[in-house]
């Protein structure tokens, strides 16, 4: 794939004369839309042109003069997407109309942009900080905002070599810690309203039931809760056991991925992507290398393409197995299926470890290929797994769970989300496909060499919990199918089309690389200015998008179902909070 972010022959300029113009900066594509007509343009894109899935929204800080909001929409029927942008002067207050009324999936992303860039979205239903806490000082992703451990704008830092006396970052900070405070700040005088805005919005959404009047109670689940799969928190208003309203609270694992990513060099970001969705470092790498390879306009070595597919599909199998295993925990059963799932996972991780060097944080991709070839005997091992063991084990899980009556009675008929709503809320991945929408990036806009394999997009139509479970099994079987073809076809040859180099040259421009990660569409939006570091590095994390619809999914259901819904949504906090 050699094109940059592809745009279709879609003439917005003719449809909106004077308000939409082609983005002519070198290396860029898409449209620049007048802020005042944004809502109109977005509505037309959705209704007239059929771009029904808003893939991602993000901000870019063109310090010192402009702020830009970038929207990226796709059609669920497949094909390239449309990229459009709104530019505003970089003078507070910065305001842009919200597109949440058009695509509800933008809600959390706009909150994130407000949190990190300080761009206000007018007409947004609930504009609060999302990753940082209310009361935090500043908007961290702005280029002129510096964190307490700030040293230099770009890595490599000069203090490390040649005169790199070891000084810990703490010693350089006046507070001897990762802290900074405004001038003349007095901690005793802070008045905290901390959680009040959260509870306000919860109240705002409360609908009073017509039946027997009971008191509503607020329950906080998390951030330390065994069923939330990490440090996720949901504030829930309950009427008896029924959920009346719910707000996810996140940011407990906000590790400033994007801020760090904009300081790193292009290559240095690779191991950081491992830590997004820490179950699937092999596929995380892929999205990022895809984006940068687009910018660099290079081809990937043939053998490496196969290695990428093999690793990514093994990763998907392992991810879905764990999900199925853990699902039973969420249902209140105990560990047996999870232990079985971990057994298979260990065998797959052995392959990752032998090939890339670690079990989880593989750091396997390089621009133009992969880092290491398969060591001796590993291909045999993979063959053994995909031809013999994994199909056997998939059937075993089938026998273990699929017909279990208790399991069925808990899962069947509890609707997660229907297809139409799922699209509105930008839900992607297995959850969308379980709701009857056959949207899979591997088919909708094939990347790598997926167009060479014969496989089906797994599809279920009910959209309930049970379908969400079944689709995972289906996908495991499809992945096995792909793998069986890949291990047969894999050619010999070099594993990288480029010379190994630690400082790559990336021409200026923008690129969006997206893949079908086990959890949904994983995309990286990267802007290069031709320097060794990316100017903007944004991750479109499927967990984060899918969680936008959580309230929609849960209201009206029982609290016990909430736990299972969260389970099948398959969130992972490293990616959700980044």
């Amino acid at each position, binding site marked *: 794939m050699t094109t940059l972010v592809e745009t279709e022959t879609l003439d917005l300029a003719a449809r909106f004369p004077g308000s939409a113009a082609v983005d002519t900066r070198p290396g860029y594509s898409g449209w620049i839309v007048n802020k005042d007509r944004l809502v109109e343009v977005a509505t037309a894109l959705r209704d007239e042109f059929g771009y029904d899935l808003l893939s991602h929204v993000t901000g870019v800080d063109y310090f010192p003069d402009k702020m830009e909001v970038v929207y990226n929409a796709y059609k669920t029927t497949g094909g390239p997407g449309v990229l459009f942008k709104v530019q505003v002067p970089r003078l507070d207050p910065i305001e842009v109309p919200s597109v949440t009324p058009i695509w509800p999936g933008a809600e959390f992303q706009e909150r994130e942009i407000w949190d990190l860039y300080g761009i206000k979205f007018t007409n947004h239903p609930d504009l609060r900080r999302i990753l*940082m*806490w209310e*009361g*935090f*000082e500043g908007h*961290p992703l702005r280029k002129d905002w510096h*964190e*307490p*451990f*700030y*040293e*230099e704008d770009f890595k490599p*830092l*000069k203090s490390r070599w040649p005169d790199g006396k070891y000084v810990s*970052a*703490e010693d*350089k*900070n*006046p*507070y001897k*810690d*990762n*802290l*900074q*405070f*405004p*001038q*003349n*700040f007095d901690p*005793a005088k*802070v008045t*905290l309203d*901390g959680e009040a805005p959260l509870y306000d919005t919860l109240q705002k959404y409360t609908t009073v039931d017509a039946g027997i009047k009971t008191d509503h109670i607020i329950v906080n689940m998390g*951030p*330390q*809760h*065994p069923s939330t799969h*990490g*440090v996720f928190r949901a504030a829930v208003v309950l009427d008896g056991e029924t959920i009346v309203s719910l707000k996810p609270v996140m*940011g*407990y*694992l*906000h*590790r*400033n991925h994007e*801020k*760090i990513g904009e300081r790193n060099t292009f290559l240095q970001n690779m191991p950081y992507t491992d*830590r997004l969705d*820490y*179950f699937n470092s092999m596929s995380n790498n892929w999205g990022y290398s895809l984006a940068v390879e687009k910018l660099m306009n290079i081809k990937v070595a043939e053998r490496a393409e196969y290695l990428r597919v093999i690793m990514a599909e093994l990763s998907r199998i392992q991810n879905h197995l764990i999900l199925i295993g853990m699902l039973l925990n969420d249902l209140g059963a105990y560990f047996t299926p999870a*232990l*079985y799932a*971990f*057994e298979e996972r*260990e065998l797959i991780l052995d392959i990752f470890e032998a090939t890339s060097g670690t*079990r*989880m*944080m593989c750091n396997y991709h390089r621009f133009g290929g992969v880092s290491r070839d398969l060591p001796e005997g590993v291909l045999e091992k993979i063959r053994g797994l995909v031809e013999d063991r994994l199909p056997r084990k998939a059937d075993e899980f089938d026998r273990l769970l699929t017909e279990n009556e208790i399991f069925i009675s808990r899962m069947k008929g509890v609707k997660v989300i229907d297809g139409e709503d799922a699209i509105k809320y930008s839900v992607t991945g297995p959850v969308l496909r379980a709701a009857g929408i056959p949207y899979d990036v591997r088919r909708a806009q094939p990347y790598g060499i997926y167009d060479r394999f014969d496989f089906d997009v797994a599809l279920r139509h009910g959209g309930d919990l049970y379908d969400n479970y079944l689709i995972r099994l289906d996908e495991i079987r499809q992945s096995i199918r792909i793998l069986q073809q890949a291990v047969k076809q894999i050619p010999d040859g070099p594993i990288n089309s480029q010379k190994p180099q630690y400082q790559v040259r990336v021409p200026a421009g923008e690129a969006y690389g997206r893949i079908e990660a086990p959890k949904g569409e994983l995309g990286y939006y990267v802007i290069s200015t031709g320097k060794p570091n990316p100017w903007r590095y944004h991750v479109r994390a499927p967990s984060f998008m899918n969680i936008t619809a959580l309230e929609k999914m849960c209201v009206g259901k029982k609290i016990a179902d909430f736990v299972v819904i969260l389970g099948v949504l398959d969130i992972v*906090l*490293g990616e959700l909070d980044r």
Partner: protein
Amino acid sequence: MTDNKELNSPGYEIPEDLQHAVSITTIDRLYNWGRRWSVWPMMFGLACCAIEMIAAQAARYDLARFGMEVMRPSPRQSDLMIVAGTVTKKMIPAIVRLYNQMPEPKYVIAMGACASGGGPFKEGYNVVAGVDKFVPVDVYIPGCPPTPQALTAGLMKLQEKIDKESIRKVRWYQKGADSVELPIPVLGPDLMDPRRYNEIRVLAAKPAEPATESKA
């Protein structure tokens, strides 16, 4: 059995044929032996490292062999907090609160680079550079993430530490040593540790420092 061997205090001869049935030991030894094989960790994962912690609990590494399989979701029933993952400023109040809720004797393991000293994300604005800034840590396990075997090695290190304790000297049996509550950090414009309010006030009153770059 191997357990007996561990329990026997040196210094007493036990006839060969009685060795599997009788041991002579000290109270300390017995006390520590009982504790070291029943450390119950809290079910508490923060980030990537937590997955390796779960993997260590799962079939292949099976911490049940160490009496550590009972992962308690409640801090009130656990002896050990494995801080597995990146500690963020937003999360640290909850961590300190959980630590306060654990009954004595309690131990903390910092698993992975992040919990030990900030890890790869140390420079981030929302990251606490090591959980030991707020709660006392007993064992540090470097690695990103430590493999399950490395975690097990760390747990054995903790067992060694338990072995060295003496029932007469341990802090939870001292007079007036009712568990000391750690003050819970507050989220203001940045993370504020109540123990350091004065210091913060004094430092914040100082004129702005020159940029850190020039010092580096």
